[in-house]
């Protein structure tokens, strides 16, 4: 019989549909796995309220586990505790960078208007000389940046706390 440790390991194979280099474990959206004789209960949480990937992730979990021979899988979504970018794993941060997305850096105080942008290094050339183009980007969790040295535009996975 499988135990919850096996399930956690299996879930590393479920990719985030919008950032496929990250698994849902890297992203930190799996909060809990409980296995008993009747069923396997997996608790996940969305990154943002409107994250359109949640239903897809749920289906992928059920599908993957059924391939592994595990039926009676229930996936539950909870909102609290609310997800934070602090839950992205070290390996997740490394994978993001290799994929060309700058991982989150420290929180900026959002009540300070026109304050300094978060200091983000360019994921292509490593330069620290970058500028924020927009606080909002290609998905709810990203901002748009541009490198002032190699001029490459890039995504920054913005800090959410």
């Amino acid at each position, binding site marked *: 019989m499988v135990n919850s440790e096996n399930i956690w390991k299996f879930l590393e194979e479920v990719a985030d549909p919008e950032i496929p280099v990250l698994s849902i474990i890297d992203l930190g959206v799996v909060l809990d796995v409980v296995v008993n004789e009747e069923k396997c209960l997996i608790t996940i949480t969305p990154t943002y309220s409107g994250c359109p990937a949640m239903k897809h992730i749920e289906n992928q979990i059920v599908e993957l586990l059924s391939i592994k021979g595990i039926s009676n899988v229930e996936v539950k979504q909870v909102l609290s505790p609310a997800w934070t970018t602090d839950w992205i794993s070290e390996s997740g941060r490394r994978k993001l960078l290799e994929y060309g997305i700058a991982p989150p850096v420290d929180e900026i105080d959002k009540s300070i208007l026109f304050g300094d942008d978060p200091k983000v290094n360019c994921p292509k050339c490593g330069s620290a000389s970058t500028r924020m183009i927009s606080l909002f980007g290609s998905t*709810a969790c990203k901002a748009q940046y541009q490198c002032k040295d190699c001029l490459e535009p890039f995504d920054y996975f913005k800090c959410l706390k």
Partner: protein
Amino acid sequence: MNKELFEYVLRVGDDSLILGQRLSEWCGHGPILEEDIALTNIALDLIGQATNLFEYASQIEGGKRSADQLAFLRFDREYRNLLLVEQPNGDFGDTIMRQFLFDAFRKPFFERLTFCTDMQLSGIAEKSLKETKYHLKHSSEWVIRLGDGTEESHNRIQNSLDSLWRYTDELFFENDVDASLLNEYHLPILSDVKQEWIKNVENVLNEATLTIPNNNWQFKGGREGLHSEHLGKILAEMQYMQRAYPNMEW
């Protein structure tokens, strides 16, 4: 069923839904690409919040209607959103000013709602607050840029403020629904929210060299289902598919 709690959750959910629908009208029409993306990102956050709130409202109602049915199959009189959020997008300044007045309310509101004793509501508030902080930073900075920008942008956003100010008293509307829930659930006290709102609004508007109009005439009615003509038009578009093809899914 707890009718008052249902009504309270609908208020918060309807504000998010209707403003989310309004902002999504900007999709493909933003003045610059980055703002097109920003406004629709904010719309997505709001519609996500609305989904969470309607799912909870549906539970309170005992599953009589699903979250989708609450969103798409009510009539205008059954919506509890503020008149402010249903006002037309107008120009970019009108949209930004509407957003700013609302975000400046939502942040202190959600901060307080995280302390309520209803775990579902406090969870939704905790989640939504993180998003709202980004929204407020975005709308505040634009109010200042436009207000303290060129003569043209200053005059236009001053006009936006003049025409939207009359909907701001309603942000703090309370009736017997609040009275019956307030103590039991430790819900936000709106007079406290108002104090923080006015302080922040005054700061940003000063920085933006804009003047709060001194007309005292204020509209209300949204919280009790009495809406402006604009809501009907929003619903006609938003509900079209479900009305024309009942129960359709994709």
